[in-house]
């Protein structure tokens, strides 16, 4: 049952629940330490924001696939499609409205809403036709590749331009110099976050923590329980009177919104959207690798998976040959799927949790005697 514990505010109570790993004091203690360290990292630990910012953005994308695949049981091999749509929307609106408004409120909103609407349409077709999970996974990948092919042939600025923005074919959205960074506020008090600077790091870190905590609440609410129920047995859930298709559509849209947010942030970060990088096969496979290796059935594990694997990937590509980096990534995926199919961080989390439980049990027994 997910009634919040007595004496605690309802919202805070939902942070902990059986759907998310880490309920102990140990977890929240180390969570606090990690958050503090993350905020201090650029100033004291020599972490370079222009490198790490990318990892944080990946965290949103990993969270999106984790709730869709891990919790909802719907695998999409084309989650980067929403990432790309969000990125392009952010760029197009940003280029057109920057001179008018001087902020990116609408661009960010569009970057989240447009993928969500697209997901609602495609999802409605797929879920109400009751397509098999394998079909959905494949169709999403093909849709993403379709976007890639479309964007690659939009080099002609006379045909493919929206206002001041030109889709630009394989060069990506142009004029790239006009793609704004994330900026909030009005008139003279606009806070702009350059994607290579430390400001963007604090902004995205705060947003990621907020989204993470918000999603924990969502997953431990009755919606989260329903999601897991549908993952485990859709027919039985339907017998209980729930509209399975509608809930699947809802989680599909939420996941698309998150991926769109990630795409918008990524466009704002590098002031650039490149069709092959956002819609291509490797963009899509990387999301699946992060989430599968980290642990798809837990939000924390998926986000940690994205950040660590991105970090490792960057280290492999900069210290060696990028081709080897991809082989290593694929190899890690296969090995983890064979040895610890639930994912590395869930595996470690369970071990740690058992150890912690044993030690606290020991302590309480000593106190009893």
């Amino acid at each position, binding site marked *: 049952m997910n009634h919040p514990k007595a004496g605690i505010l309802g919202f805070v109570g939902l942070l902990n629940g059986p759907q998310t790993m880490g309920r102990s004091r140990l977890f929240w203690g180390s969570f606090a330490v990690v958050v503090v360290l993350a905020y201090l990292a650029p100033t004291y630990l020599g972490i370079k924001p222009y490198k790490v910012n990318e990892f944080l953005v990946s965290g949103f994308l990993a969270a999106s696939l984790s709730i869709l695949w891990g919790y909802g049981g719907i695998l999409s091999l084309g989650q980067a499609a929403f990432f790309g749509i969000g990125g392009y929307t952010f760029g197009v609106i940003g280029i057109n409205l920057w001179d008018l408004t001087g902020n990116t409120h609408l661009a960010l909103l569009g970057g989240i809403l447009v993928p969500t609407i697209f997901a609602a349409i495609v999802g409605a077709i797929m879920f109400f036709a009751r397509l098999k*999970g*394998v079909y959905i996974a*494949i169709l999403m990948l093909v*849709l993403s590749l379709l976007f890639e092919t479309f964007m690659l042939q939009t080099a002609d600025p006379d045909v493919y331009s929206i206002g001041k923005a030109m889709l630009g074919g394989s060069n990506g959205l142009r004029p790239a110099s006009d793609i704004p960074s994330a900026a909030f506020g009005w008139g003279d008090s606009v806070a702009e976050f350059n994607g290579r600077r430390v400001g963007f790091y604090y902004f995205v870190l705060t947003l990621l923590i907020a989204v993470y905590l918000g999603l924990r609440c969502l997953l431990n609410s009755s919606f989260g329980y329903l999601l897991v129920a549908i993952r485990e047995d859709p027919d039985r859930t339907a017998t209980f009177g729930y509209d399975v298709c509608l809930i699947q559509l809802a989680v599909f849209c939420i996941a698309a919104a998150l991926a769109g947010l990630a795409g918008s942030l990524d466009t704002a970060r590098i002031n650039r959207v490149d069709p092959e990088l956002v819609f291509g096969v490797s963009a899509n496979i990387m999301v699946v690798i992060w989430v599968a290796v980290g642990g798809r059935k837990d939000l924390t594990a998926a986000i940690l998976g994205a950040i660590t694997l991105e970090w490792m990937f960057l280290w492999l590509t900069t210290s060696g040959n990028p081709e080897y980096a991809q*082989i290593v990534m694929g190899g890690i*995926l296969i090995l983890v799927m064979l040895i610890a199919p639930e994912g590395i961080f869930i595996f470690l989390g369970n071990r740690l949790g058992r150890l912690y439980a044993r030690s606290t049990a020991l302590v309480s027994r000593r106190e009893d005697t």
Partner: protein
Amino acid sequence: MNLGTELFGFAFQYIDSVAFLILSAIGLSIIFGMMGVINMAHGELMMIGAYVTAYSIHNGVPVPIAILFAGVGAGIAGIIMERLIIRHFYKQLLSSLVVTWGISMVISQLFLVLFGPTMESLRTPFSSIKILIGGDIGFAILGPKSFAALADASGRLPSGVESFGVYRIIMFVIAVLLIAAIWALMRYTEFGGRARATMDNPKMANALGINTSHIYAYTFGLGSALAGIAGGMFALTASITPFFGAAYTAKAFITVVVGGSANFISGLVGSVLTLGGVQTLFTNIFSVYIGFVGMIAAAFLILLLMPTGISGFIERIKARTK
């Protein structure tokens, strides 16, 4: 150009696109139909076939034997993949998708590291023989000399005349023969009987003394070998790179998904005939890209009407009329 020429041209393109779809999807659809696994490394098996073919031909092996080698090479690669990794994932369809995708990434990058970004491309067989239709000629099959005599200096043909390659027609014939062979294998041989029993009810088949684990391995190998043969045949028409297979896999996946898993032969034939038609029509009227879009739109539409794919639909009608 008169109507007859146009119709013939359309028919030729239809046959061409059907041949490409059959060849690129047949291996995938056997594996999907028998085990429910969509093998994301299918494109890489085709790529292995292409490399084997290219390597053999560069070393003086005749073309048909080189393509057979491609089938053997990819088949062995497939059996190794199945025994080492894929057999652990039969009960988890989504996980098998993910793990085969990982395999595909490793194989293609490995080939990139080992053999470099491209391989010396091959000459299309019979490329000097052309089938000409239309204009004043009507219908003719010409060798290089008479072709050169007919065309002007820059190789252009008189107005109204269209030329088609012979190799495309051979590809179509082989595609049809392969389907017929697979059908006969499944229908009349002992292996086919065992395979169908395993597909129908693996536990019962196992209880009756069929080694289902071996059946799975052989079926996977067979599908992989077909992928290799397709790759070998495509290698003669396209440039060969480590990501060679990716160009065909998206369409192959769509074909297989539309076909469904109830009966892979009827599914494959039905979906190839429909999707090939849509693709040819839209490509003719608009562009290659719109042809691809039309194919995917058609796939969505078909799945909306028949969620279990074309073969599931056919099986249902059969069951009803019985």
